[in-house]
């Protein structure tokens, strides 16, 4: 299974699978061996980890909106929600 051993596709799949469920011992070893041999997958792995660290900053969009000038409720929906709330207060 030499070709399979070098499959970057499988490596990236196992890395994603690992976020959902524990890998088997064989899978862990396979992934470790692949990463040992494959610079591209190491690099992509680091990039994805960095992206995911950044993603967590979006948990609270308020942390970002000043910088991005984030989206806002339209005036129309603002008025509509105001009046719906006023009706029930």
């Amino acid at each position, binding site marked *: 299974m030499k*070709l399979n051993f*070098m*499959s*970057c*596709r*499988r490596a*990236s*799949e196992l*890395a*994603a699978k*690992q*976020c*959902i*469920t524990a890998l088997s011992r064989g899978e*862990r070893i396979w*992934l*470790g061996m692949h*990463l040992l041999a494959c610079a*591209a997958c*190491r*690099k*992509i*792995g*680091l*990039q*994805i*980890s*960095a*992206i*995911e*660290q*950044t*993603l*967590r*900053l*979006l*948990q*609270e*969009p*308020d*942390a*970002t*909106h000043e*910088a*991005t*000038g*984030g*989206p*806002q*409720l*339209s005036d129309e*929906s*603002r008025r*509509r*929600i105001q009046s*719906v*709330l*006023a009706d*029930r*207060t």
Partner: protein
Amino acid sequence: MTIALPEHRPLAMDRTGKAISEGDFFSFALFYGKRHPVKSGRPTCGPNACAASAPSPELWVGQFGDRLYRFALLRVPDRSAAEELVQETFLAALKDRESFRGQCEFATWLVGILKHKLIDHLRKTTRQTSLSETPDETVDEMFNRLGHWRNPPASWAADPAELAIQGEFLATLQVCLAALPEQQRQALILRMIDEEPAEQVCKILNLTPTNLWVRLHRARLRLRLCLENKWFGHPVARPRSGTRKGTAHEA
């Protein structure tokens, strides 16, 4: 919310800030993509927060409307659906106002209600098509028939966690998120942004664990490629050209 990022970052860090050395391949293998159980900087309603009373309802939309809207829009990128969810949240909050006892900030309490509304919304709108996932050609094309990367990854000029301080990068990230296919986006957001446990995500989206990791795999690769094209591949966007030891310049 403050964004605390260390000044000096090694090649990579795990979530506790421990450096991952490039030589340590086995721990790297475990690190690569691994998510530990939920431990986030999210504010929680705890007994230690000081008591506060709810502001009067006519102030809600002005004070919290945009915040809730952004929260919803990131997760349901359809303006009218997001507005609808904000309205439902305020109405539920109005009805249930008595139950707010100041255990947490009022805004946090509202976000908590919105989260429930969002999950209901996802449950209603997600239909599982079949047990096997349909192929994703964009992802298939990233590999040749031997399963090797067709295009080797570009070296990125900076660490995204560092870039996060810049709003533009986060805006690009959101554009790339919104460009993901709906089902992939939902899986990625619930698991990686909201940090819901995998079993919970499977329940909400009515998926098997295999469906979920297949979607997550695709979403991550698409997101990476999108950022490489839209941000890192764009020379003007690179904020610095310094070669620091340990940045993604290797290979």
